């Protein structure tokens, strides 16, 4: 029973990821693509959690937090590049 529910959920998450990939490819502006990539990262977190339930293991729980941190870092870096044109500044005051 639980296995069937997990498979249906994985199918739903995969379908939503397909929609996000469509947005990454098609997206008219760069911010659309960045937001879609961020959401793909969050969907990957969901997939890792579901797969670790399917495999009945605790070994992947660090990956969840890791993917969250990396998605946040990547999105911040992308948005800073879009806003200012440079990611790491030498001195902010001038």
């Amino acid at each position, binding site marked *: 029973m639980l296995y069937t529910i997990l498979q249906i959920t994985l199918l739903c998450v995969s379908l939503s990821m397909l929609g996000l990939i469509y947005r990454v490819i098609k997206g008219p502006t760069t911010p659309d693509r960045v937001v879609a990539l961020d959401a793909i990262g969050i969907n990957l977190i969901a997939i890792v959690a579901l797969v670790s339930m399917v495999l009945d293991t*605790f070994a*992947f729980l660090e990956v969840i*937090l*890791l993917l969250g941190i990396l998605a946040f870092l990547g999105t911040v870096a992308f948005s800073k590049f879009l806003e*200012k044109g440079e990611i*790491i*500044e*030498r*001195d*902010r005051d001038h």
Partner: protein
Amino acid sequence: MKTNDVILQTVTTIVSFIIILFSIQLFFAGHYTPGGGFIGGLMSSGALVLLLLAFDIKTVNTILPIDYRLLTAIGLLLAVGTGAGALLFDVPFLTHAYDYFHLPLLGETSLHTAVIFDTGVYFVVIGITMTIIQTIGVSE
């Protein structure tokens, strides 16, 4: 154009502590569960990169006045020192040892010399990642 990113800076001050705690947890959990020096060092440098993104290189150098090339050298020295220390006890290079100690607050704990080697890996990973990012990131 003067931009005001107070939200990013406030979030960074909180989140970077969580990331560093997570990296320390990954580092110490490496012996029995997934984790270890490499991924812990990468996460620590992730927190430092987040600080670099929210502030600038000058501010981060004021917060953490670390020479990252020196950090790499110290890490390599720790790793080689752990390996060479085994020679003092008349065993082959890089032979590790462990024993059980009774520590205050922690109780019965198994201490292993592989932790020192892993600390070396941790320092080297932080040093190299931050050197690469600071060198590439600042281009005039």
